[in-house]
């Protein structure tokens, strides 16, 4: 790579030099990386070479970001259909994307690409307070590409990695509790739905969550975007600061700083755009589709890949002083419902639910009900009915919802997992 990599600093809360760069310096540096990546893909990747040839773009000689924006977007069906023409580097390990929308995409990882992600992972762990000599209790290394790099990063930082049994499903809570008691970690990484159900479960069992987590100073939560009240609720409940980590199997990676304003993008490994339906960047404060470009020529290239995720970019300076842009991924189109011509995500509804201290931390699912009229939001909420009128008012004011059909789930135990939308037939069962 000809662009010079940022120096490691490990000074106070700052992990490396990239955090101190101005937005202009960062953009210029990223462009050099993007140009190299695109030239490499044009040369070595059959799928991209053909795609760009068809679009009439000379990808071997981009001169600025405007040239870059001429590269056509690619989608999951494109890459699935391309098969071997896209996965030319023959990585050793594959992960599949969740595939909630149609076919899953199988993404391969090779050694060079894996190494590339160690620095951003260590940076995120550093921001969250992980230090040499500590033990991180984490979920399985094989469930997500980004998780595979976490154990490596923990050991590189001079720590120990402990893994708890099972998946992020609440049915494995007992194993997690056993692991907490045995390992006494200083740091925990797991999924948001798991933390939510664990906190409730400990309460039900009369276990003091803060006591159980007394060795832990920080936790990283992955898998679902946290609303600010939910993050507070978890931090308060466990007595440890919770940081959101987000990313995609296709290469996006971001971690929250201690200002908790939204995860900062690891701009050394990915260039992230948020675009409107016409493929133009959305205005500040607007949401759009997340488009990912990996900024290194290792593994299979990902250039202007439209993930379908609904996301928002924040480019104003963060309270922490870092000028690395921030990104919040709210969900996927299929984890949202259309109300009055607007995609309402499960996150939006959780924002309104979590604003009530009595409701924060309850599982919330959007209900897909084709018989509900236009402007009607159907939502299932765990537990008994509580302050429904006030909640309906908030949903009306914040989301433009005319009417809400509530389905209070009582004690019905549903695995929250990563699902955010269920069908009406599942609620009525």
């Amino acid at each position, binding site marked *: 790579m000809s662009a010079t990599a940022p120096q490691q600093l490990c000074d106070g809360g700052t992990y490396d030099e990239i955090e101190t760069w101005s937005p202009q310096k960062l953009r210029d540096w990223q462009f050099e990386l993007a140009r190299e990546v695109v030239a490499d893909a044009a040369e070595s990747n059959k799928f991209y070479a053909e795609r760009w040839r068809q679009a009439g773009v000379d990808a071997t000689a981009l001169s600025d970001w405007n040239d870059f924006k001429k590269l056509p977007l690619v989608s999951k069906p494109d890459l699935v259909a391309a098969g071997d023409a896209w996965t030319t580097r023959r990585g*050793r*390990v594959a992960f599949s994307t969740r595939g909630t929308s149609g076919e899953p995409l199988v993404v391969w990882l090779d050694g060079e690409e894996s190494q590339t992600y160690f620095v951003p992972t260590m940076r995120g762990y550093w921001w969250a307070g992980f230090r040499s000599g500590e033990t991180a209790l984490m979920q399985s290394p094989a*469930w997500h590409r980004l998780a595979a790099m976490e*154990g490596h990063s923990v050991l590189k930082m001079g720590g120990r*990695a402990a893994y*708890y049994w099972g*998946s992020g499903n609440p049915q494995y809570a007992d194993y997690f509790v056993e692991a907490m008691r045995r390992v006494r970690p200083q740091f925990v990484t797991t999924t948001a739905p798991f933390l939510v159900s664990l906190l409730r479960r400990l309460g039900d069992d009369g276990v003091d969550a803060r006591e159980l987590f007394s060795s832990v100073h920080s936790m990283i939560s992955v898998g679902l975007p946290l609303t600010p009240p939910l993050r507070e609720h978890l931090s308060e409940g466990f007595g440890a600061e919770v940081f959101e980590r987000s990313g995609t199997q296709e290469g996006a990676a971001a971690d929250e700083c201690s200002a908790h304003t939204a995860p900062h993008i690891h701009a050394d490994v990915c260039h992230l755009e948020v675009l409107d339906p016409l493929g133009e960047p959305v205005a500040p404060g607007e949401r759009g589709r997340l488009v990912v470009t990996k900024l290194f020529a290792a593994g299979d290239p990902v250039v202007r890949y439209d993930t379908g995720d609904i996301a928002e970019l924040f480019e104003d300076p963060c309270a922490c002083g870092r000028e690395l842009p921030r990104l919040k991924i709210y969900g996927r189109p299929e984890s949202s419902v259309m109300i009055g011509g607007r995609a309402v995500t499960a996150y939006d509804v959780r924002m309104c639910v979590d604003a009530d201290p009595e409701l924060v931390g309850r599982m919330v699912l959007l209900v897909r009900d084709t018989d509900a009229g236009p402007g009607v939001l159907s939502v299932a909420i765990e537990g008994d009915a509580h302050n429904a009128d006030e909640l309906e008012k908030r949903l009306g004011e914040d989301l433009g919802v005319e009417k809400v059909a509530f389905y209070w789930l009582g004690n019905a135990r549903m695995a929250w997992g990563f699902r955010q939308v269920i069908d009406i037939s599942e609620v009525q069962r």
Partner: protein
Amino acid sequence: MTALESAAGGTAVMDHLISFEVPGGELRFGEGDLDVWAEHLVWCYSLLGVAEGSTIAVQDFGTSPLAYLGSDLLMPSLERGVAERMGARIICLDASPERIVLTPEVVRQVKPDVMIVRADVLGLLLEGSKRSGVNLATIGGMTIVAACGIDAPPLPPGPWQRLLHVESSLLLAPQCTLCGSYHLREGVYRAHDGHIINLLHPDAALCEAPGLRVTGETCSLGPNDTLVELASRGGGRPA
């Protein structure tokens, strides 16, 4: 220390870098320790007939050795995993229900040579496959290996091969494609009084195997291995 514990290599505590919390215990690993087990898993695969260069799909939790020994990319301190030792490619599928539903489509895209499936979820996987119109049992030459515990319930009928797998004991014993018995590899495990003892890992729990029968026979694929059969439900001969 009981005689069995002493036979199991004592209770030495390592200066570990990595630990796995597993049902019924904890397994700790120091620098280089994981490589011993990656080599052993490759040996298991060779007895199951898995060829060098295979594409291996693993439908098990990421905290199972079948998954984490798959590659050095997955595990720090592992110098060479199965992928690096066999020139293989590993597909991580996980064993949670929301991942299992994706498997038929992943299999259709990637066409693995071998699929290692946690026996508990084999039924769920077959059901999901049937729904999506993919018959895993007959997909183009793919071998399916069911990773069964000692007390595994009977497997659904099908041409499955078997790998005996008990997490807390770090027991990995393949059912040999040649002799049909499970091989307890020489120098790694020992059968003793209804138990299987892991001779190499000090954290490994003694594995109770009430239906264990040492056949007393030998197999050319491991002339000094102890060949065993299990009377329990999961451990019959291949269908």
